[in-house]
């Protein structure tokens, strides 16, 4: 696999994640979509690290930190959704539109 292939793959991954985040009604699915987008970025880091960057560590460190932050993000987001769900009994993105206009 060449660098271009990885980049293409990550682009596809990013697009899929984005698509999921935008099309899925369930907020959990949205979260998963966003995680996919971040993973696409991680994949890029790794690919660049592997193919074009002399310094072997940076990309990997970056990816590790991304994973860590993503986990934190998930925790926060889930708790927020939970908070919402308790009151509204729904986590359907299209029905949470009380604040508008």
């Amino acid at each position, binding site marked *: 696999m060449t660098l271009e292939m990885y980049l293409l793959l990550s682009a596809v991954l990013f697009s899929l994640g*984005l698509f999921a985040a*935008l099309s899925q009604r369930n907020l959990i699915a*949205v979260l998963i979509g966003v995680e996919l987008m971040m993973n696409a970025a991680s994949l890029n880091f790794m690919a660049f690290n592997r193919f074009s960057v002399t310094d072997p560590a940076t990309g990997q460190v970056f990816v590790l930190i991304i994973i860590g932050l993503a986990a934190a993000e998930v925790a926060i987001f889930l708790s927020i959704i939970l908070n919402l769900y308790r009151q509204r009994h729904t986590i359907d*993105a299209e029905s949470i539109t009380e604040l508008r*206009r």
Partner: protein
Amino acid sequence: MDTTTLILATTFAPFAGFVIAILFLHRSPQLAQVVVTTSAAVALGGAVQLWLNGPAEPLRYLWFTSGAIDLYFGFLLDGLNLMFGVAVALITLCVIVYSIGYMADDPSKTRYFALLAFFEWAMLSFVYAVDLLQSFIFWELVGLASFFLIGFWYQKPSAAEAARKAFLMTRIGDVGLLIGVLLVMMTAGHFDIPGLLDPDVGLVTRLAPATLTAITLLIFVGIVGKSAQFPLHTWLPDAMEGPTPVSALLHSATMVAAGVFLMARLYPLFLAAETTRSVILVVATITALLAATMAMVDRDIKKVLAYSSISQLGFMLMALAAGSLFAGVFHLITHALFKALLFLCSGLFIHHFATNDLEQIGRSGGRGMRLTTIGLLIGGGALAGVPPLSGFFSKEEIFAALGHGGGSAFTIAAFAAAFLTAYYTFRMIFLVTVPDRIEPHTADDHHEGSAEPWTMALPVVVLSLGAALAGGWGDKIAAALGVEISHHSIGDMLPAIGVVAAGVVLAWLDFGRGDRAGFLTRIPALQSLFSNGWHIDEIYRAVFVRITGWVATLLHGMEVKGLDGGFDRFGVGILGAGSGSRRVQSGWVQFYGGCAVVVVGAIAFYVGMGG
């Protein structure tokens, strides 16, 4: 006293009188009378002394400088000014004294006398002005005084309306005059009257004939307005709404004559502008005839006199236009005297009988007021041109002038007008003095005491003397103007005498006996035409007033609906756009994120592709 002191005293004494009266004497009208009368007497004394001293060098004080303009305030003291100044001061004093009696019962006496003083100041300053712009300024102020005096009884709606009309119609003329004056400035670079008239460096030598014609025509527009010439004459009859002494002073003797005076003042310019003079001749002739026809039918004594003023002013302008300065000015002076006299007499009648109606005055016993009747006869005779009263001589000069420089058509027209003058004047005299019946004057009258108190009688006497004798002053006036005159033989005078006699006889036939109905009653069409003033007012109302109204309404509509409404709609449109743009904020989070990421992504992609 030197000239400077004299002239300042003459012009500013009335001003001082005005200021003192209007500011401090509201509570004490008697004192105001005294102050104003004194100031007028001072002015008369000064004017006479100046006249006796004879022509002097002009006085000039720099008023201000702007760009190329150097404006001077000053006094021109030549024969014409000095003479007219005396006439103005004299008649003003007469009228002020007369007013003491006439206005005795009016609650706003202070305002009245103050305004008279204001008028005298403005008028004298106009007469003596050395600078054309200064003339214009005081010309306007004179008009302002006229406005306030016509509307003196402002609570009478008719008076208020008359004042407005007078102001507006003279304003139309003033616009022409102002443009003319400014044109003078543009072409000559100064406003100095002696300089403008100078035969060597004045306008006549410097300007192309066309420009001169334009300037003189524009000035004439101003004269038309002020001197109530056709077609701007309709304000003057209405101006009779003012107190009668005011009519005597402003609206017959002095202010309306200001137009004629201005033409005489700038005579060399007019003399050089042939075209202008023919225009003036035509307009003045029309005016003289037109106004005379109206005077033939009106029953209101003051209106008759007002129409006759218009007509006589037309005479003066005819003379000037025909090329005779002397004839015009001579008639100006005699007219001032006899017309003031006539008004004062009519005022006595009105004051006593509380009516303006000629027949009513006659029937109430008008001829019982001896002094007044004599004054009426003298004044009327002079107006009609009965020899040897003053009007005869001045009119004779006009006929002669027209014969010289006017052409036969105008001479004939002048004779016709003179005939009509005699007719309507004696109609008035006969209606007052030989009424068809006498209805005893009832005692429920509002006036106690004399019908002819001395304050009112004295001016009548003075002016009667003047009106009777002024015919002999021709030589002096000619000398003052510096022109040669030829004396007319009795033979030359015969046509004029004949015309007057014919007029008087016809008037006697119509009004001295029988049913007191004029021959015009047998021609109803003319009767109605004349008594409606040839429908000129109606035409104005139908055309100019309505057009102005239409335009105003149109533009008002444009302002409200078009401009204002347009801006409002624009604002509402933006608000609408605001409401529209809020719709984007749908509340749906994925739409938000989608928009954001897709926009940024697309742009980044576009840029990333090197676009």
